[in-house]
């Protein structure tokens, strides 16, 4: 099983075709950064890849299996950080984590003391209600939730927006570790710094995804 992700001619139509013919293959340890102007369909593409939206054509394959035929694969394989934080505002940080986390209480405690929850600074705010958190804190929580069950594929929709410099650096460090561990990342971004870190740079324009040279001008 060489390719972790295979996107084959995926299209999506609302009033017009937003995505016309998207094809992409990603293997283990690949980090694809997708650029594109506002409204170019980046979010739609990630929503399709995360299973939250169905394509109007084409095929999606994760580890050789079609997740739209077995939707459980989406949850099993994919961690997704949407643009809007997928948090439950009226309950605490810890309660949000408990709802997503599939391990035991003991393992959760370990994550707080030495794992990703500690790293993201969530241990000190675990009892705070999400509605009282700042935008950056919510973002950190969302990213932690996507990673907490160790999925082999990570989809990030502009993940570092609203984060301060320290946590931007932390997130990038975490992503580097994730890639090194064999994970596959697809992220949309406007931040040109992500181009340096990504192993692959793509541009989504006019409903078509194309590879860019790392040095090539993105918004030319």
């Amino acid at each position, binding site marked *: 099983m060489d390719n972790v992700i295979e996107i084959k001619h995926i299209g999506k139509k*609302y*009033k017009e075709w937003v995505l016309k013919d998207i094809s992409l293959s990603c293997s283990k340890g690949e980090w694809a950064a997708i650029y594109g102007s506002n409204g170019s369909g980046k979010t739609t593409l990630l929503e399709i890849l*995360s*299973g*939250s939206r*169905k394509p109007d054509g084409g095929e999606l394959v994760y*580890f050789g*299996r079609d997740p739209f035929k077995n*939707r*459980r694969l*989406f*949850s*099993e*394989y994919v961690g*997704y950080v*949407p643009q*809007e*934080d*997928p*948090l*439950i*505002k*009226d*309950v605490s940080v810890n*309660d949000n984590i*408990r*709802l*997503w*986390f*599939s*391990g*035991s*209480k*003991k*393992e959760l405690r*370990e*994550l707080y003391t*030495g*794992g*990703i929850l500690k*790293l993201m600074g969530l241990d000190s705010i675990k009892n705070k209600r999400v509605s009282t958190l700042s935008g950056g804190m919510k973002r950190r929580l969302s990213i932690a939730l996507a*990673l*907490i*069950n*160790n*999925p*082999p594929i990570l989809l990030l929709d502009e993940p570092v927006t609203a984060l301060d410099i320290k946590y931007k650096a932390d997130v990038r*460090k*975490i992503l*580097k*570790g*994730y890639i*090194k*561990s*064999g*994970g596959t990342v697809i992220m949309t971004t406007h931040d040109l710094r992500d181009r340096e870190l990504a192993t692959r740079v793509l541009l989504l324009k006019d409903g078509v995804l194309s590879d860019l040279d790392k040095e090539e001008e993105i918004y030319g």
Partner: protein
Amino acid sequence: MDKKKDINTDAAEEEISFDLNMPKDDDGDKIINSKNRLHIIVYVIAFSALAALIAYLAFCFALRSPKNTVAAALKSTLEELGCTAKTSKGEALRDFLLSSPSESFISVTYKGGKTDDGKSLKRLFGSGFSANIKYDPTEKRASGDIAANIGNMPVSVLEFLADNKSFYGRAPLIESLWLEIPFENMFSSYNSSVLSGYMGRFDFTQDFSADIFNTSSLRDMKSVRRLLADYFCSDNTVAEKLWENAYVTKTDEGFETENGRKAKGYCITLKGGDLSEFSEDIKDNIKNGQSLMPLAHSILPIAKVLTKDPLMTEEGLCSLIEAGQPDFMPYFDPNKDYDVMVYVYRKKIIKAEGVFDMPLPESPETAAIRLSLAFPSGRELKDKAVFEVAAVDAVDKNKTALKTEITNDGTAYRLSAHGSFRLLGAPYNVSAEGEYSADTSQYSLDVSVKNDDHPSDRAELSSEGIFSMTENSLNFSAESLDIDAMGQKPLSADIWLETNPLEGSAGAAPERSKKLFTPNEDEFDIILDEIKKGCGSLAAMMQLIGG
């Protein structure tokens, strides 16, 4: 699959590594051993309750979804336009929208009033509305919108498109997404759109929070979900599988509430195939071990006494249960659909009920079990709830053979069981009444079994005492236990049992402070074990009800 959820940081090199859950092809060997009766009892009760609760949750989510409201309004509108009455496949709507051979434009404006046609539409659109439909023969597409008149301003409440395959609708005020409904098999698609489409997004989007938690029922939902997560499956995907494939239809069947009002009835159909997969998910989850620990923690005191092994640990119990876990598969026929009736009053679920055929372990026979959860309207779940388990006639599902009801009114649990059954061809009536106060730990129980044809063929049991169970102790003191079996010599005894296995010295037998009983030691142990088995089941139910 190694389910270790960990992230390792190497302080020296600042390097982070993940132990990712990479897929693997084999599912591993399934250990099936249904001989351990304790485990079967625990799992049958637990899993059945879980199935009912999951269905209940699924329906709550669907019902409280704002998008479902939009979809329901859409459906209602279509019905009121007469489309559904003509065909269940949506062809009438397609024909209606795409019938014109040339470019055309239809505009309807309604200014309120009380015409027959207007009444229902007025309910939806307030003081008036306007509808525009345009047909483009080049694109072979119809489009339009419906706007409500708010003041003198038309505000678009519904936009739609239709081509020769699908109908697309959206309510721009509420949701910018388009809801697609293929004309082919339109209404099953409608259902799957509501449940499959949106439920599929629960994992990832903000809708997850909006749908579940920004409602007045949050507290109930949260407690139920937490209960599930703690005891059975902390993996959201398990529940998601059910939500994806549940179909909801409204029924004419109602339910009378406490104040005599009629609750609306809905039927959630769960696909047997998915339930089988669901049970496999639970098994996998249990096999991974983590989810089993809280359950083991709860039943450990009982298990220690039952096995007479004070050294038993949670890990040991987990291993034991894993080794003896029953196969859930026989409990659901993958080729059959299961219906769960849900009754809703003032947007609150007040009762959920399902009937399941449950094959008996190691027996060719099946038992039909009705599981029911009732929540009187306007109260918190824990204040008053009724959990009902009833064996029902396997042929006529509406006929109840034995009905058990446990009520928690906030001060005491009350058990009530009544019914009849046949044993070796003879008809028996059974009735049981009991009460238990969690505050004082006092219980009382009266059970009577009578042969209708031969009144002397009877057994009665009456007992009062104290029962309490904490995380690490079991205290049972039967101050009186009177058994009158078949009119024979009455058997009376006092049993005091105070057991605190965890605090005992290693290797020491559980302490029994006092025992006064006429049967011999073996008989005493058998009876005691049966009582404790019952206590274990009762405790599980009490936790389920009490949250």
